[in-house]
């Protein structure tokens, strides 16, 4: 049985976990004891029964242990009827991951070749506490949280996906950025032997795939480094073993299979901006008022849909996460900084 945590009005994680507790693992652990049985219980409820039809993965023991210790349903949609979780087969069988091909079914067909164990992540740049970490050590200090987010693709379709992961803010805080750090730059693995898309001589992308966030965007509590979804580890095609999830930005910002996280002084040039700066900006915030030059962004097709019900819904500013993130862009012209 799933015990519901106090229902947030609009995805306020602070409604679920007091923010001060949320922000610090140590204080969180201390807070757990004081918060009483309700929250403590809910934090340990396995959400597995919700995922009984999801195929079991092949996670290493440490990852399985992290997942079983997840704070389930840490953030949930305010309207679960409208934002229904997409079936696992759709979320894992229909997505973009150009390292594995251009068709949306290519990633699930070809990503089996990706070796995700062992995996290491480099944290470098303007930090006092960088280095190369095994994924296990990288994840160890933080508790996993389950967060059910809307994912809005720049191609005008969307899905609701339950991620498992750790707040990026905790990782950055541990890295101890210097005063020069203004942006975070992310890099995907380059390995043409494992990633057939990188072998294509017709590819427009200059590998590695690069993404970036402003430091305050990266520190926003909504920004997640995911290592799992649907109560299990990430399938390779969804960016295993480590990917970013930034729910108020178009999906391409949520870089997959990350090998490097750098704190930098200059604004990084993300891959899509490099390819077509007139179509894709650095910010890429979901914005129904600013069209992609080739199609409208005013609406989206919520997937799965059916032949005669395209399930078209209005796209919300910041993908509906405005309360949490709008202040990051106060005073900015979002038509210019698309």
């Amino acid at each position, binding site marked *: 049985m799933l015990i519901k945590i106090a229902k947030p009005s609009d995805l306020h994680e602070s409604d679920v976990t007091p923010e001060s507790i949320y922000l610090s693992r140590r204080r969180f652990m201390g807070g757990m004891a004081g918060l009483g049985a309700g929250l403590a219980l809910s934090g340990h409820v396995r959400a597995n029964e919700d995922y009984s039809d999801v195929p079991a993965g092949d996670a290493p023991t440490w990852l399985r242990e992290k997942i079983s210790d997840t704070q389930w349903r840490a953030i949930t949609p305010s309207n679960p009827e409208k934002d229904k979780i997409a079936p696992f087969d*759709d979320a894992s069988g229909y997505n973009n991951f150009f390292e594995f091909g251009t068709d949306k079914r290519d990633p699930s067909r070809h990503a089996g070749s990706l070796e995700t164990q062992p995996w290491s992540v480099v944290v470098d740049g303007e930090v006092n506490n960088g280095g190369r970490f095994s994924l296990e050590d990288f994840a160890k200090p933080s508790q996993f949280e389950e967060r059910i987010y809307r994912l809005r693709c720049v191609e005008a*379709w969307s899905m609701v996906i339950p991620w498992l992961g750790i707040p990026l803010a905790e990782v950055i805080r541990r890295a101890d950025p210097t005063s020069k750090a203004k942006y975070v730059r992310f890099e995907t693995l380059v390995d043409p032997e494992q990633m057939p898309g990188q072998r294509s001589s*017709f*590819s*427009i992308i200059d590998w590695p795939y690069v993404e970036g966030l402003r430091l305050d965007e990266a520190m926003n509590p909504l920004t997640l480094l995911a290592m799992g979804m649907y109560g299990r580890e990430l399938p390779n095609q969804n960016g295993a073993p480590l990917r970013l999830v930034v729910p108020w930005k178009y999906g391409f910002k949520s870089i997959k299979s990350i090998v490097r996280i750098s704190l930098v002084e200059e604004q990084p040039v993300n891959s899509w901006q490099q390819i077509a700066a007139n179509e894709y900006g650095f910010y890429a915030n979901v914005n129904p008022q600013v069209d992609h030059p080739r199609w*409208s962004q005013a609406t989206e097709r919520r997937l799965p849909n059916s032949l005669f019900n395209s399930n078209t819904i209005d796209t919300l500013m910041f993908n509906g996460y405005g309360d949490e993130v709008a202040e990051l862009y106060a005073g900015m012209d979002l038509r210019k900084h698309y």
Partner: protein
Amino acid sequence: MATPRVWLLWRIGVFLAALAPLVFWGWQVAINAAGPEPGNYLLLNIGIGGLWMLLLTLSLTPLTKLTRWKGFALIRRQLGLWTLAYATLHMLSYALFILGLNWALLASELVKRPYIIVGMIALIGLAVLGATSNKWSMRRLGKRWKPLHKFSYVILGLVLLHFFWVVRADMQEWAMYAAIAALVMATRLPPVARTLPKLRHRLSRA
């Protein structure tokens, strides 16, 4: 020698072969094997299918020159009409499954998006060619029929441009179709066109 009955069977066979992909995609949708966005699945497959139809139609004349087999010429109009049918279904899929029959949105997309404009021009062109593909029109148009139907070359160019503007990350698939199109068009260059019948003689002697 082939009898009229055999030619009829040939044409029916081609008809069924051209229909088969549509039946297959429809069946995939019906059994839920087309993914979470079946409308988009149909849209993309039918679009590529239409490009194949156009390339096949335009291959028939050089193939006839190369082989002198009567069968190719016999299916030229049919494949041309199949191209029109695929293109129409492609556009209808877009209007129906992607835009959800929102005519206002269709109208605004038609003015704003270059790739939609180019696609629509190609579709209108195909419709004109389809409407003038009957014997009555051929008689009426006389000498002008041939130059009019050479507009199919322009349509091929427009279709490739339409496709080019949709590509996002990798040009490989597009480049493959562009190469086939270049080959098909190259057979129409006078020096190449003159060589084709000679090639046939050489092949038949070998």
